[in-house]
């Protein structure tokens, strides 16, 4: 027995040794070590000046910092085995820049850092007081003509280590979002209730930081690959976290018994949270593949101590019995558990010290928690080369807790079927069609339909060499049988959306490239709306079948011309015309002025850009770029007015490549 045991052990030893050495020898045989040639570093540097001329609203050039500035930038790429370095920098001005740095050592160590920062011009919406003699409703505008904007910077860092000779990674990734600047804060003053309505507008300083850091590891272990990661997230608010203002006695109606005083408003709470994730999947080179993800997220509001927990479990199985036929089965379970700490967590706002009568109480409804399960099956079939057919069925069920307190259904069920096909009808002619049908039982919000259908048709055609045409049209229709306004039923709702797009791209000449496109987007909704009568007994009334419509037409043309090796020219024009309005029909809503006129809208936006580059014999390249943006509000609606504006931006650069 002892001898047999030794024999088996020795056999295992030698067998393993043979496997390992033969594997090693197989790798050694015929292997010639690769020698990298010298690759010279590549560089590109430019500098210039950006001239800006601007008139009227900053809506023209919403994402442009509308001040003159110096512009700088360049690229550097260095490859010297085993190190690689790449730097890409574009500075348009002090509030608008992009930078990317990548460094790798043997691909064992990899670092990537990206920063992008831009300036966002924000609106200062006008609050119009039609009768200044009445105090309520009134307006309190403290920031007339003030110009607002926020600088937003996103910094992403990624650091990865690979273990040589074994497939595993360790990584750290961080994300920092910083917002700083000023914005308009609109709010309701007066009593903060119906007894005294004073719409107010004031400046708010913004300084926020959202940080997240992820630490993870990943390894491939035979049949499966596993990744585990942990994320921490924080939101810090450094300026005007909350605003304070004086409110008058709330008085009636019932429930609004708050006595006057200074109260906080528009708090931005600080947050803290974390996420743990596990991914597992099998080899993707197989005919049977499975993957699973489990993710758990926690968020805590640092001010009210409200907590939310999310759990997501998802899995996929893919079976490819033959190359032409594939089955996909997907399952997902989502849980949302929200817990508020009640009025006790908000002593300063729910039991304010200056509320002498002590007759003001917070009524915090329990938040809605929910569980959703989604199961879907997809079949992909390729009957002949160039034709793919797909069909999908999915079933989703959502169960909610505390929904009844808000007049919402406690459960919702969705069934959806989709059919799609990609067809290469002939050389240069491709057709895509897709149809989706959904049935929803007990939809949760009025915006959700009972039945929805969507059809997409897209054709790409190359009639002659170097001419590419595309036509795409999508129509979607939704039908809701019975609307519900806080538990009170109303009639039906119909929605229709149309999306049409056509484009022609052509290489007219070898050095001339032209592209033209047209897009049309239309949204139509027709539904009952409800309002309260201001005449006692203040019944809730219905305006039946109120239509809403908005639409946009976009026309775009672009030319790119290279008349000589050292000269390139480009021009692009985009012109968008858009409008939107709704049309109530009840006299209560039309007299003495229609409530629709306050939000009626028609506007045009034109963006024109022209640029040219000329390379001098000295190797330097001169560049000129001109951009003109024009915002024209055709319907001068004083209630929703964003003034017209024009911006001209000229960028002159000189650059050199090495």
């Amino acid at each position, binding site marked *: 027995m002892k001898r047999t045991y030794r024999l088996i052990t020795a056999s295992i030893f030698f067998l393993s040794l043979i496997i390992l050495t033969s594997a090693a020898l197989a790798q050694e045989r015929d292997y010639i070590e690769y020698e990298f040639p010298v690759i010279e570093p590549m560089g590109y540097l430019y500098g210039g000046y950006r001239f800006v001329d601007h008139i009227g609203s900053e809506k023209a050039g919403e994402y442009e910092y509308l001040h003159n500035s110096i512009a700088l930038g360049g690229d550097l790429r260095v490859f010297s085995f085993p190190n690689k370095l790449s730097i890409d920098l574009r500075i348009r001005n002090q509030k608008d820049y992009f930078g990317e740095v990548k460094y790798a050592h043997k691909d064992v160590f990899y670092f990537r850092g990206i920063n992008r920062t*831009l300036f966002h011009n924000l609106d200062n919406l006008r609050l119009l007081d039609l009768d200044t003699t009445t105090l309520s409703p009134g307006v309190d505008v403290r920031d007339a003509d003030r110009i607002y904007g926020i600088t937003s910077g996103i910094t992403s860092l990624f650091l990865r280590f690979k273990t040589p000779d074994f497939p595993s990674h360790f990584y750290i990734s961080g994300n920092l979002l910083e917002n700083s600047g000023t914005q308009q804060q609109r709010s309701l003053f007066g009593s903060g209730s119906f007894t005294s309505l004073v719409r107010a507008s004031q400046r708010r300083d913004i300084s926020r930081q959202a940080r997240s850091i992820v630490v993870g590891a990943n390894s491939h272990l035979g049949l499966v690959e596993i990744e585990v990661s942990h994320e921490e997230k924080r939101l810090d608010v450094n300026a005007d976290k909350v605003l304070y203002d004086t409110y008058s006695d709330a008085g009636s109606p019932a429930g609004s018994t708050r006595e006057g005083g200074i109260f906080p408003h528009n708090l931005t709470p600080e947050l803290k949270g974390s996420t743990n994730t596990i991914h597992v999947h099998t080899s993707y080179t197989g005919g049977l593949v499975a993957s699973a993800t489990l993710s758990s997220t926690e968020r805590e509001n640092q001010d009210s101590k409200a907590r939310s927990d999310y759990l997501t479990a998802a899995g996929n199985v893919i079976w490819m019995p033959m190359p032409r036929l594939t089955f996909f089965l997907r399952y997902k379970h989502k849980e949302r558990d929200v817990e508020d700490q009640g009025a006790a967590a908000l002593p300063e706002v729910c039991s304010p010290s200056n509320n002498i009568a002590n007759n003001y109480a917070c009524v915090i409804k329990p938040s809605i928690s929910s569980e959703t399960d989604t199961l879907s099956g997809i079949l992909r079939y390729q009957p002949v080369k160039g034709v793919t057919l797909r069909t999908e069925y999915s079933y989703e069920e959502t169960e909610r807790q505390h929904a009844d307190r808000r007049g919402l259904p406690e459960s919702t069920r969705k069934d959806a079927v989709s059919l799609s096909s990609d067809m290469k009808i002939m050389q240069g002619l491709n057709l895509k069609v897709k149809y989706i049908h959904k049935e929803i039982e007990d939809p949760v919000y009025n915006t959700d339909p009972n039945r929805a259908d969507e059809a997409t048709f897209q054709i790409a055609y190359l009639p002659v060499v170097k001419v590419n045409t595309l036509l795409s049209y999508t129509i979607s229709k939704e039908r809701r049988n019975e609307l519900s306004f806080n538990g009170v039923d109303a009639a039906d709702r119909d929605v229709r959306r149309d999306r049409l797009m056509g484009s022609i791209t052509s290489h007219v000449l070898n050095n001339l490239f032209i592209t033209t496109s047209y897009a049309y987007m239309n949204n139509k909704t027709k539904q009952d709306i409800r309002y309260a009568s201001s005449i006692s007994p203040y019944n809730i009334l219905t305006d039946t079948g109120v239509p809403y419509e908005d639409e946009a037409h976009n026309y775009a043309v672009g030319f790119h011309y290279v008349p000589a090796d050292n000269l390139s020219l480009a021009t692009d024009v985009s012109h968008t015309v858009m409008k939107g309005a709704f049309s109530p029909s009840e006299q209560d809503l039309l007299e003495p002025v229609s409530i629709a006129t306050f939000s009626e809208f028609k506007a045009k936006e034109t963006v024109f850009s022209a640029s040219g580059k000329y390379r001098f014999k000295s190797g330097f390249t001169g560049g000129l770029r001109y951009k003109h943006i024009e915002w024209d509000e055709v319907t001068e609606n004083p209630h929703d007015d964003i003034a017209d504006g024009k911006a001209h931006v000229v960028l002159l650069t000189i650059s050199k490549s090495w």
Partner: protein
Amino acid sequence: MKRIVTLRNIFFFLVLLIVILAGCETLKISKPIMPVREYEKLIVGRLDAQYVGTQNCLSACHYHDTIRRNFEASTMGVQLTRKSGMPVVNCESCHGPGSLAIEGLTPEKVAEDAKEGKQTACNYDTFIDIKNLPPQAQSLICLKCHTANATFNLHNWNAGAHAISDVSCIDCHNICKTFKKGGPDLTVKPRDTAAMCYKCHQEVIAAFSLPSRHPVPEKRIFCTDCHDAHGTTNDKLLKKPTIKEACTQCHAEKEGPFAFEHADTTEDCKTCHSPHGSVNDKLLLLREPFLCLQCHSGHRTSSTSTAESKSARFTRCTDCHSQIHGTDIPSASGEGRFIQ
């Protein structure tokens, strides 16, 4: 005391070590549960050809020098040598064995042809015809390594919308043209993602031409900030498990949870917002007040109400309900009206 260091114990220790090492070696090898033999046959190349190595493959002619340099400087370029500590990857890893392609091709013949102004071509037909492979087979060329190489962004590739829709790796990753295209890396430059996605998602170009939009045309927000083209378990290939989590990566001040929640509408930002673009301010799906009137009854009004009263109540709901995403401060009634 019994001796621990015996010949027998050393022998068993060695056996154990060898078994562990052999086990670890097998762990490094990706094993499909069920192989897709038809696709594997397509990407294996000519069985009568031999692997000759990149040096041999390119030594005779310089036609591929630029491509070679691009590859050398790319992410996988360092894997041309074992000194990288990674498995060796070269031209033949994707194109198949190259001996038949360069048969009879000598530096002398190349020089002779060059004198006559001719380019000496390889016998390309003996390589794998990558461009004409089915998309799944094209992807398999990459996945044969990347499924076993701990590529952590491919966890949901196979059931993702792109894989289902016959999109292959090479539709986005141009392996041999990376150096000129902007960097020694096969990863797509973030600033180029939109142009790449637009190739198929042309309808999105129209949405981004609307006046209310994310700064994607300005190249400050990238498609990859919200979507993961490599596949996720979420709708629309969103990177985050929920729409709210995707949006609050940047709009963290609206994430909550709040003491007073707007029911659970804020879980799906798309209930009110159109993320790619809208004719309406703040990316709203519809204009205020109609947007809110879809679900909520309007304030008290009648034909005898003044224009001023109507204007205050039916212009923009968010003039007064300024904390519509949720708040921790009750309104004057003590309830959550999102006013304070």
